[in-house]
């Protein structure tokens, strides 16, 4: 059957308690209002003191060797509090790519540093809006005497400013894809973007630079399968974050309507409102079940099957997150669309997340291609 182990339950409870204290509404607003790249104090606690980044890193690289379930638990909880930290980018986007495509020395170096909580890492995919962001590559790598010359522009890189290292997939002259790890201080052009969802900063990256041969960290080019494996993890983590953000928005709403009085009654006492809140629980139940069912199977069940479950989880979680955020605004009434109250933060994150790594339609297309067994119809 499907339930958390006592260890997982403990991780969950402690993380929840910690984030409620440390990623409060006030803490988030400090980031949102100052335009800081992340909450550095919170990140230090999470990565160094609590060791959350070590969770899924194999023990040989200094990690705890735990699995997708533990990471999904933490993603859910950081999502619930909209924690302003480069956790998803480091643990779900970058680490799995290092793991699946990195050379042994690169794994030792970077996964080790991630596990130790010493490094935030992100990936500069050419287009994060599609279901297969590795299908196009925006950067060209030209072999030079001392290493490579990298040229290209990536429109949106998540958490780029907060990252110590950015992983850059780049096309070699023969069309194969290499992976480079660039320290963030090494002369790239980074242009922070003004975004609606200020809880997760994005920047444009432009490269026109020579890098050493050691910057290239793949184990003989990166295959489509290696990208796919890494991205399944990123999608799963994102779905869990979306679930959490939905739950967070719902809780904020429930608390508000339990107090707010209209026509001499709490808003929570109106049956139409009750039913809408209950429907959100139904959607939460669906999304949570599929996310943790898929997490438990990832790496154990058939990979293609897991990928489909994760695609489905993204659909449910994206729908859910948007609905929970939109209900948060609506049920807060007049204050729901003010800057002062939190619903708009959840709402903007919901819109931003839904566009990541393949929108609803693309995820369902993947599932349909498999269910109909026809590889998709054009």
């Amino acid at each position, binding site marked *: *059957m*499907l*339930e*958390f182990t006592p260890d997982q*339950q403990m991780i969950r409870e402690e993380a929840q308690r910690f984030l409620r204290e440390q990623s409060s509404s006030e803490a988030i607003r400090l980031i949102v209002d100052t335009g800081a790249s992340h909450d550095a104090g919170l990140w230090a606690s999470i990565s160094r003191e609590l060791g959350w980044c070590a969770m899924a890193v194999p023990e040989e690289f200094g990690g705890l060797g735990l699995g997708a379930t533990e990471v999904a638990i933490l993603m859910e909880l950081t999502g619930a509090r909209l924690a302003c930290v480069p956790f998803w980018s480091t643990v779900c986007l970058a680490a799995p790519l290092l793991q699946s495509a990195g050379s042994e020395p690169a794994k030792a170096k970077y996964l080790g540093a991630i596990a130790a909580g010493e490094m935030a890492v992100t990936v500069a995919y050419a287009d994060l809006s599609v279901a297969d962001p590795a299908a196009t590559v925006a950067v060209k790598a030209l072999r030079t005497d001392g290493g490579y010359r990298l040229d290209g522009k990536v429109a949106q890189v998540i958490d780029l400013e907060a990252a110590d290292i950015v992983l850059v997939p780049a096309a070699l002259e023969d069309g194969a894809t290499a992976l480079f790890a660039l320290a963030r201080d090494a002369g790239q052009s980074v242009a922070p973007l003004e975004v609606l969802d200020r809880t997760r900063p994005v920047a444009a990256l432009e490269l026109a630079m020579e890098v050493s041969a050691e910057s290239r960290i793949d184990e003989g080019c990166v295959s489509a399968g290696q990208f796919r494996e890494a991205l399944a993890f990123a999608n799963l983590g994102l779905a869990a974050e979306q679930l959490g953000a939905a739950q967070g928005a719902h809780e904020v709403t*429930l608390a508000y309507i*339990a107090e707010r009085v209209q026509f001499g009654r*709490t808003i*929570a*006492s109106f*049956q139409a409102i*009750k*039913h809408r*809140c*209950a*429907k959100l*629980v*139904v959607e*939460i*139940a*669906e*999304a*949570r*079940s*599929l996310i*943790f*069912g898929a997490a438990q199977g990832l790496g154990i069940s058939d990979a293609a099957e897991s990928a*489909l*479950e994760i695609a*489905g*989880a993204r*659909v*449910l979680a994206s729908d859910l997150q948007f609905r929970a955020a939109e209900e948060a605004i609506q049920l807060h009434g007049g204050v729901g669309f003010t800057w002062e109250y939190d619903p708009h933060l959840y709402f903007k994150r919901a819109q931003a997340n839904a566009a990541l790594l393949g929108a609803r*339609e693309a995820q*369902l*297309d*993947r*599932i*349909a291609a498999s*269910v*109909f067994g*026809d590889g998709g*119809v054009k």
Partner: protein
Amino acid sequence: MSDLNAFRTEVRDWMASHLSGTFAELKYRGGSGEGDVLPELRKEWERELAAGRWTCPGWPQEHGGRGLSVAEQVAFQEEYSRAGGPGRIGHIGEGLMGPTLIAFGTEEQKKRFLPGIRSGTEFWAQGYSEPSAGSDFGNIKTRARLDPVTGDWVVSGQKVWTSLAHLSDWIFVVARCEEGSVGRNGLIFLLMPLAQPGVEIHPIKQIGGGAEFNSVFFDGARAKADDVLGQPGDGWKIAMALLGFERGISTLGQQMSFQQELDLIVEISKENGSDRSPAIRQRVAYAWTGLRAMRYLAMRVLSDDQSPETRREALTYKYQWSNWHRDLGRLAMDVLKMDANVVSDDPRRERLQQMFLFARADTIYGGTNEIQLNIIAEQGLGMPREPRGKL
């Protein structure tokens, strides 16, 4: 894991060799909207199951069951459905009456009733709903009056939505035994034979043309003094416990049957070209996703997980499966296009049509959508209770 696989193989083999010959006709029958088809053959099938010790496999061994673990019961249900095992006429006895008797019955009652259920020779119906009560269980009006001479209870009133009463031998009835009592108080839980004077059974014709449900009229019908379960006044408590048994292992078997329906939809859409419609493709993929999610939710609910999330979300299961199924019915019809309207002898189409129509009942019986949402809001989220009116 490998033991479970061996067990699955055992079930599969048994089904393959027994659901054949005269029983082959029963494959995939008796599901949604077909509760009353081929009744005699399906009763024989119950006895065939009993001979193989596959009735009541989750009951304790002392009561004739196999004492299977939850995982084994799930495996059994899944393999049963996968093999096309027909809808179980013995379901109410096996799934509801038996566990309730085991929990609340006297030794003598257990001895009298459990064997008939286990052997597939005595079938049970449930007497809950009433015309004016609907989902409002506290509003029960059927009365039970003690006959001081015999100690029997004399019952008058009407029950509705008693599934398969016309094919059953016994019925359990919740009735009001204290004059003037209201709500949850003063109810009694009675076990009554259906073949007796003062009981009339009227089938209710359904949307799909079948008649799985009945109205049962009681006019001075009798329950023996020995056939009271618990004490007079315990009716509410026992009925609630019994409703708890309804959410059970059988849900995973039900999901197998949902999967078959989805498979049929995909199959037909490939035949008639609906598989080229982007909208149909997306809806099929969405249905696939929902079924997967339901599967994992059922697995969470069947775990011992006592986390607040799982306890709250368990309340959503009925709402989830019934609305998913209702949507699937519509999808099936949209795939069939104009053929959806025409009855044919293609058993696949017939099954989907019956499913489409009967799924409309899924969101009503056993607690309507509206009641489910109230329960989720009030019990799951602690929102204010809906005030009772005074009409």
